[in-house]
């Protein structure tokens, strides 16, 4: 097999893995948009906040310690204990549920029936608030995310491909784990939406708020549930991206990677987020590999958007988005 083809195959595989990580972020957007019509600009910051909270709990960090020390002249920083990763993840999920309740009660309940742009602006405000709140709560230093996920080259794949192609493929163990988790997450979300009472209620709300209300579904409960689910997805994305780069405030910028995925896959489709992520991941990596070096490199950020826009020309609602026809 020619060298370029072997390398191209490796690039495609890595693109698929990168796409899964993009899709993890996009999923959170889809969940909230589907159920409430809100484009949640704060989804990236939610991933950051979830990751900060997880690491803070694991390390036994005292929340708001800088503020407490500044006001009371104390010197408290840590509780002196370390919380196991699994328990810390559960506690972080509780925090994200509380956050979902607070967001719904304090912001969106008061904005029912407002224009989508108003709701979008509210999420921009939420993003800035949450970023500052996370900073005050946990500090702005870069933290190591270590929940025991494997990282580095997968030696089995390296050996296997080396025996075949005389060139060992690089696949990151973390990406393999992320793929498995994303698959499990999508499967669980589909099962939840199709086969549980709350899931069916969520779909009913997504289809028609007023009809759902008329049959006794609590909109507040559904919205808190959906924001909690998005918080959980944000936590998973925060763990994966935080393991790659450390937990730091740039983590919120991963939302930028989700936008072309949403444009391509559609804002209302869970499978769309996955397929969109994979297409963007493979597309940008292949373009960088094949064309990037000829035009100065660093093409991935903008090429993802070009690819998404190309798809939009043919399917404005995205690959899996709902085609909305309004009769006048």
């Amino acid at each position, binding site marked *: 097999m020619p060298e370029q083809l072997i390398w191209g195959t490796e690039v495609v595989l890595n693109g698929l893995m990168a796409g899964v990580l993009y899709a993890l972020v996009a999923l959170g957007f889809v969940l909230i948009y589907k159920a409430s019509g809100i484009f949640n600009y704060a989804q990236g910051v939610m991933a950051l906040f979830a990751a900060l909270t997880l690491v803070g709990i694991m390390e036994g960090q005292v929340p708001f310690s800088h503020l407490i020390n500044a006001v009371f002249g104390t010197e408290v920083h840590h509780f002196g204990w370390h919380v196991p990763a699994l328990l810390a993840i559960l506690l972080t999920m509780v925090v994200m549920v509380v956050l979902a309740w607070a967001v719904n009660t304090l912001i969106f309940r008061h904005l029912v029936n407002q224009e989508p742009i108003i709701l979008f602006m509210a999420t921009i405000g939420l993003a800035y608030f949450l970023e500052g709140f996370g900073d005050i709560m946990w500090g702005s230093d870069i933290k190591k995310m270590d929940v025991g996920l494997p990282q580095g080259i997968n030696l089995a794949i390296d050996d296997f491909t080396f025996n075949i192609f005389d060139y060992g493929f690089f696949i990151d163990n973390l990406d393999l784990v992320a793929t498995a988790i994303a698959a499990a997450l999508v499967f669980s979300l589909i099962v939840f939406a199709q086969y549980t009472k709350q899931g069916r209620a969520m779909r009913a709300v997504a289809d028609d708020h007023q009809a759902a209300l008329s049959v006794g579904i609590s909109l507040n409960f559904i919205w808190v549930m959906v924001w909690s689910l998005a918080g959980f997805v944000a936590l998973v994305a925060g763990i994966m*991206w935080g393991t790659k780069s450390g937990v730091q405030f740039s983590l919120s910028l991963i939302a930028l990677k989700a936008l072309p995925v949403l444009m391509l896959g559609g804002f209302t489709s869970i499978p769309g987020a996955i397929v969109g992520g994979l297409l963007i991941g493979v597309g940008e990596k292949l373009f960088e590999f094949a064309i990037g070096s000829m035009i100065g490199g660093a093409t991935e950020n903008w090429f993802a958007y070009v690819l998404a826009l190309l798809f939009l020309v043919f399917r404005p609602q995205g690959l899996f988005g709902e085609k909305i026809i309004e009769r006048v």
Partner: protein
Amino acid sequence: MKMKLIATALAAVVTAAPAMAELVFPSLSYRTGPYAAGGIPFADGYADYFTLLNERDGGIGGEKLEVPECETAYNTEKGVECYESTKDLGSLVYQPLSTGITYQLIPKVTADGIPMLTSGLGRTSAKNGAVFPWVFNFPANYWDGASVAVKHILDQEGGDISGKTIALVYHNSAYGKEPIRTLEELAKKHGYDLTLLPVDHPGQEQKSQWLQVRREKPDYVIMWGWGVMNQVAIQEAVNIRFPMDKFIGIWWSGSENDVKPAGEGAHGYKALTFHNLGDDYPLYDDLKTHVFDKGLAAGAGDQHGTAIYNRGLYAAMLVAEAAKTAQEIHGTSQITPAMMRDGMEALEMTEEKMVALGLPKFGPEFTVSCENHGGNGFAAIGQWDASAGEWKLITDYMQSDQEIIQPLIEADSMAYAEESNITPACN
């Protein structure tokens, strides 16, 4: 009642503002935003050094020191706003820890007659003081950094790197592109091949670049990164098992923040530096006695001894020494920004002086003159010891290749002079 309120408000403003007799060293800090992890230790070190001088020495030449802090969040527009809002406080010198803010401030400080020091950042050709009379960038600049990295590689390879390949992984911005010209010129001189691998901002996804490194197997990788790009690059290098002792970052890619997320894998990673590392200096004893133990440390007080905290200390020490020089030249303790500029232009940092300051071997020796606002271009290499969790200096300070760099500085600064209608002059 209204008059009373206005009088009270005025009194509050007057008492809150720094007294005019004080020497003012504004700090354009960034304690928030995506780059706060780099901004906080620098701002803490900068403030703590001046607090030490106030507490231990009663200021400089009997004048108390004031360090008004203004938050830029590493945002260029906010940085300019901070400059505008603090320049009338009697500010003596600015040190924006940002190349973007530096570029915006160059014409402003020149027009306002306030000196600016951009150690290890900003516009490299500002070294030519005949063209940039108000801008200084001692003791080293980006091109010095690139040259010293190649010099270290030459040392590692027994003086011959012809036929070797060096890859530059860089932030795809004006900052990241700074070393390219120097590395290209050095490639002609030493016969190595240069591979350029740009990474888009912010640099969270670098799989393509590191797959290319894995395929092409360069002998060395030099990195020009900042923020999250550094942590991701080091982690990706660990993932592909690139030898860490052949991976050299610029000084903005050489903090504890950059290596710690990669854990043990980052052991052996190298970074350039223009000041020493760690806290084993007599100055730290003074800081403990006069600042830390009195509860006067800036910020949370948890950055002491880190690479960028030391850079903040060093930055403050350099301008404090320049202020002393200015007081000596002009025979007054109440110096103006113009006098401060004279002090900076006559600054001479010797080992003897640094020993007296409690910072033996902390920085390179250098002299400043009108023609040379950048010092002598010395930098050293630090290496990360993951098990000890600390940086160690592994080389002496080495001088950059002046034969290559000086003509580049001359050409770039003269082009700026022509564009901006400046007649280069040294009195």
